[in-house]
């Protein structure tokens, strides 16, 4: 890659995003009709892009092991299915998960930095991250300090992300903006830019603990931020919408949006993930429907 001199923009300049325009454009993607081989390819790709997630206070070793089995064996009666991209857990569960997916190629993503609120000291957040990395996490999903962001302390937010990136080592860093708490699209754009310039490998919409979580318009704003960043710096950044995507039809709309905003180089799980738990089974039901010609019921697909 050519050496580009990257100048960091002033984050206090307000980004200009028109909400009505964004929502109109996002709605247009849902008008694409995805059928036949396009649909099949899209469904396979969706499965391979899922970060299968469990982030409950009541998670246990048993629960995580069962989830990891599902991650590698989504529906063994359907031959040739891909496995999910990653399993996403709390730092205390990383070791268990890592052992359970050994040999499958599935990555382990860990949340960190006082997830989900991020309301703690720098030391605690760094220690949290270091612990997850030591335990074997391939990816770290951190949260930004939304309170500081809303106070206008953009340098604080920037420095925090850079510090976490530093202790990630080989692990790729996803930065969660928690768009539901930022509320407006121009704030989401600003937060996206801060995250990318500070060293994020991925930007992510939500923790899944706040409503609204991912929406198509908010994801579009972030994809456009990634596009502008790419043209300015030559660096590719990944995108992860998380929370609220439980239906295949919606996932396919997201893929259309990705395809028509960033193009084919982003259409793989190196650069795009779905943060989801029940989406996988809906995709499996659609695949079975395509294979057998009849609509499916929940009883025929394992719930882990």
């Amino acid at each position, binding site marked *: 890659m050519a050496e580009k001199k990257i100048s960091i923009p002033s984050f206090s300049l307000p980004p200009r*995003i*028109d909400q009505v*325009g964004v929502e109109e454009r996002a709605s247009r993607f849902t*008008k694409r009709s995805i059928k036949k081989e396009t649909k099949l390819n899209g469904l396979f790709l969706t499965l391979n892009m899922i970060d299968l997630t469990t982030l409950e206070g009541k998670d246990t070793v048993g629960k995580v092991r069962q989830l990891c089995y599902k991650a590698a064996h989504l529906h063994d009666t359907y031959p040739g299915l891909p496995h999910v991209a990653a399993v996403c857990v709390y730092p205390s569960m990383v070791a268990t998960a890592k052992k359970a997916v050994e040999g499958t190629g599935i990555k382990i993503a860990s949340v960190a930095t006082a997830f989900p609120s991020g309301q703690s000291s720098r030391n605690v957040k760094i220690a949290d991250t270091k612990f997850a990395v030591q335990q074997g996490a391939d990816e770290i999903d951190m949260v930004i300090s939304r309170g500081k962001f809303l106070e206008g302390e953009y340098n604080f937010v920037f420095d925090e992300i850079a510090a976490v990136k530093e202790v990630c080592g080989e692990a790729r860093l996803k930065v969660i903006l928690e768009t539901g708490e930022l509320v407006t699209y121009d704030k989401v754009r600003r937060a996206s830019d801060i995250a990318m310039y500070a060293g994020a490998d991925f930007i992510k919409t939500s923790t899944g603990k706040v409503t609204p979580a991912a929406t198509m318009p908010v994801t579009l704003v972030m994809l456009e931020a990634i596009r502008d960043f*790419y*043209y300015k710096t030559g660096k590719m950044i990944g995108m992860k919408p998380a929370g609220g995507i439980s239906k295949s039809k919606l996932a396919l709309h997201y893929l259309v949006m990705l*395809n028509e905003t960033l*193009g*084919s*180089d982003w259409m793989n799980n190196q650069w795009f993930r779905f943060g989801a738990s029940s989406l996988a089974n809906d995709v499996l039901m659609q695949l079975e429907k395509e294979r057998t010609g009849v609509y499916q019921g929940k009883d025929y697909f394992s719930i882990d």
Partner: protein
Amino acid sequence: MAKAKNNTLTLKFDTARVYAPAPESKSAAKILPQYDLFINGKFEKPISKKYFNTINPATEEKLSMVADANAADVNKAVKAARNAYDKTWKNMPGKERAKYIYRIARMIQERAREFAVIETLDGGKPIRESRDFDVPTAANHFFYYAGWADKLEYAFPNRTAQSLGVAAQIIPWNFPLLMAAWKIAPALATGNTVVLKPAETTPLTALKLAEIIQEADLPPGVVNIITGAGATGAAMVNHADINKIAFTGSTAVGKIIQKAIAGTGKRATLELGGKAANIIFDDAPLDQAVEGIVNGIFFNQGHVCCAGSRLYVQESVYKEVLRKLKDRLETLIVGDPLDKNTDIGAINSKEQLANIHKYIKIGVAEGAEMYQSNAAIPTKGFFCKPTLFTNVAQSNRIAQEEIFGPVLSIQTFRTDDEVIEKANNTPFGLSAGVWTDKGSKIFNLTTKLRAGVVWANTYNQFDPTSPFGGYKESGYGREGGLHGLYPYVEL
């Protein structure tokens, strides 16, 4: 990593090749092999005994044959309209007139899919647009004006509105059903009767509307729909017993009509051509502005009188806007109008395609730089790729004359007063677009642009409640909203 050979960054879009065909079924559309003239509530054979073909511009296949009304047929239709006006419609209470118009609105909604498919087959516009825009907006237009029929006493302070009589209405081929709705609905609501002629390349949805009018039990003669070409239109304009002419079409024909009715006392509204300026300031929301540019010139293949065909970009953001625009062009699919994924359908006719090619040649000859997307276009039928011209000057013909196709002329500007002057520097004045995040600048532009419709931070928005019409040579009179009643009443 996505990089071109000379180390400039690019993104790879292969949109059209990625989506499997998703054609809408034709089975919803019931098209008869031949249509007669709809006069006095019945389909009547033309006195002229002549018919002509209407074809599908995407495939060049014949769809049907429609009657060619001559002067005698026109006379028959006007007589029916006059009779219905005098005996039935003029004196019917507004609230009963309203009920008929509501019925038409509801029936269009019930048969929406059929109308959308026929509109796409006959005219070439993408099914997504006819399904999501043309047909619902047409139904809503009838619904809106139905509500005015018994409320005219509130619409004109200190005046009692009287209907005019018989209205002769001539509509174009770019929004056939919608233009029929724009014409018929306010005319009926205010108590007039109608003789309407659809364009010769797109008669079918108007004839379907005639079927609905029959089913709605509208008293015979209140609406008459006759098909034909230029001669039929001229016969309507020149007929002695019409009170009002409503025409949407080219400025050239509009001028002919005005001269023809001079001294006759006939009222007229004309909705003519345009060459709208779409203005992007450096503080505009750029991604949404690019969507507005695309919408402005490629919606309906650019066959829109209010198309944003002259783009003005403030020079400091020109490079960025152009890059985003070119990327967006790569995701536009040109193809079979019946495919649900098609963004840009067929050009309406061979003649129109020839006209567009003519202007593309002129643009190149004038020294402008032409850019087209990598879209694959079908080999059969009439198709044109979305086209940009940069390095355009105000004095280029492609910046002055209406092309009526998916061709955008792009210029840069530096200051507010410069672009206001350039935007207004045209004989047309139908519409304009302004993109800026600053409220007071929006109103600076909107108050100064000499155009009948000004879109700020949006483009090509239409609503039955919103008046539409031009300044200067884009015509006079308004359609839509409260102001859309004025052309059809005597105050």
